[in-house]
């Protein structure tokens, strides 16, 4: 029976638990025994989905103490000899995985978005060159297969319910001072653009009229998103940035207003079902992947479409009154 360790990041508990799917894809449903390292105070449903759960004795470890968590992973690996160690590619996970890999003398593949096998070999697929290429990478050497996995790419569906056996881990001798959290401000609980079926996204071409997007988003029951250019100029928050360096989205409809479609932006919308792009340049890269290209000024388009929708709504309500 293979052994798979999943690190549970307390800032992304559900996404971490979903990494059980990675174990399932490599070893099959019954081919592996699952271990969760719940170093933080939050571990959600991990206790009912894993076979074993490691818990830190005498208090939790904060996820930013990446050096200690890496030591903890090394310590556990020396005892349990994991076949695979899977870490979510979150802010802290991206620091923990490389540190642990270095300690274990193991190859590490970052930001994995696809898994395959070739005989006994695990094939890990990851985007490179801002998402324009896909690299298939393997780990060499005797160490465990190690990867950080992009959150929300894999979902653990039809889970097998278990009751995890809790194993206490004493980290007293592993603690490495160096980092202190001075202040933490939770971001507002705004809806995540990844959950919206319709995205109205603005780029450099609508920077002055960005406020109009909100009205169109409302009319189409969607949310506003933005390109990196708009975010870099401080006109929109980073939380709504689409692209390889922002969020990877998969809405049913993506309306790209004044967005030329740089490689890194396009990498973020390749799973959109329909794309309408509005651009003064119909040769812009985004146009070739669009279903409809509207050539012209984005502001005029938004205003025209809003008027059209409103006119139709007025007519409908008039009809109803009659």
């Amino acid at each position, binding site marked *: 029976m293979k052994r798979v360790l999943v690190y549970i990041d307390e*800032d992304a508990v559900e996404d971490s638990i979903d990494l059980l799917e990675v174990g399932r894809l490599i070893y099959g449903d019954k081919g592996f025994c699952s271990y969760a390292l719940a170093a933080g105070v939050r571990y959600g449903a991990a206790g009912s989905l894993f076979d074993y759960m490691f818990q830190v004795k005498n208090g939790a470890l904060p996820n930013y103490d990446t050096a200690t968590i890496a030591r903890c992973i090394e310590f556990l690996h020396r005892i349990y000899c994991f076949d695979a160690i899977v870490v979510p590619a979150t802010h802290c996970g991206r620091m923990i995985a490389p540190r642990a*890999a270095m300690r274990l003398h193991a190859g590490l593949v*970052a930001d994995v978005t696809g898994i395959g096998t070739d005989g006994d070999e695990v094939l890990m697929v990851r985007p490179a060159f801002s998402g324009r290429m896909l690299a298939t990478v393997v780990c060499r050497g005797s160490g465990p297969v190690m990867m950080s996995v992009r959150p929300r790419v894999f979902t653990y569906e039809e889970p097998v319910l278990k009751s995890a056996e809790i194993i206490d881990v004493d980290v007293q001798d592993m603690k490495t001072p160096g*980092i202190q959290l001075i202040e933490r401000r939770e971001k507002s609980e705004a809806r995540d653009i990844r959950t919206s079926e319709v995205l109205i996204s603005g780029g450099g071409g609508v920077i002055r009229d960005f406020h109009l997007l909100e009205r169109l988003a409302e009319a189409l029951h969607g949310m506003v998103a933005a390109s990196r250019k708009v975010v*870099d100029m401080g006109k929109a928050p980073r939380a709504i940035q689409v692209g390889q360096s922002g969020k990877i989205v998969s809405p049913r409809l993506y309306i790209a207003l004044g967005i030329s479609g*740089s490689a890194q932006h396009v990498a973020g919308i*390749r799973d959109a079902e329909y794309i309408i792009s509005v651009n003064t340049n119909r040769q812009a890269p985004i146009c070739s992947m669009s279903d409809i290209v509207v*050539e012209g000024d984005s502001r005029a388009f938004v205003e025209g479409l809003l008027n*059209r929708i409103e006119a139709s709504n007025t007519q409908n309500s008039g009809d109803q009154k009659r």
Partner: protein
Amino acid sequence: MRILCLLKWVPDVDQLRYDRERNILIRENARLMLNPEDATAMATALGLKRDAPDTYIEAVSMAPRGAMPHLEDLVRRGIDHVTLISDPRHAGSDTWATSRVLARYLGTRDFDCVFCGTHTLDGGTGQVPAQLAEVLGLPLMVGICALVKLISQEGQAVVDVEGETAMMRFSIALPAVLGFQYSPERKLPYIQYEDLNRDVSSRITVLGNDKLGMDESELGLKGSLTQVRRLEVDALEAKDPVLLRVDQDGIDKVYHWLEQKGFLQP
């Protein structure tokens, strides 16, 4: 204050052209650019030097010797010294091998802080800063959007970081590795006209493996613990779009299309 800046030159991804017939990206002729997040890190270091002129900044880069003109320009922009680690035997190194080479050199230097970008545009694994920190036994923070303060006498840096769900402020004991997030406000200074052709060769050191003395089995593909099996272009599905204009006809057609697809539910 002594700061080491790690820099990488990467191809400008938007200039890579895609050859549909051969399913490859054409990388020749693509302009090399300083990785944007590394540029932010270096601009931050130069900003500190402007306020405290006794700050010493050394840039360290692993690159082929062809990168030399770029490195010379760094000195002309205000970097005190540049070290180019260059050896044909490094070709094909993964992040494990790369960070061990960098750690070998950094281990010989006296510094308060290592500045770098969080990610690079090409591979984009973001693993080197963390692997380097682990080999050197240093604290690490990446994704830094602002350096609040950096005081070598107090032995600490205070940084702001944007995480998944929160904005956080951390205090980090020096020496440490700090990875910056891209910030367009922090730009590299221009080269002064009179410095354009200044001879800066005395400020540049080139180090090959003969000086670093690592075993050949630790370098390049041989020294790597991961191997790229395939590199494929993630070709976009090219569609055959309906072409419209921003006029009444265009807007009517978009409206009816939205209606037909069910996006105009009341």
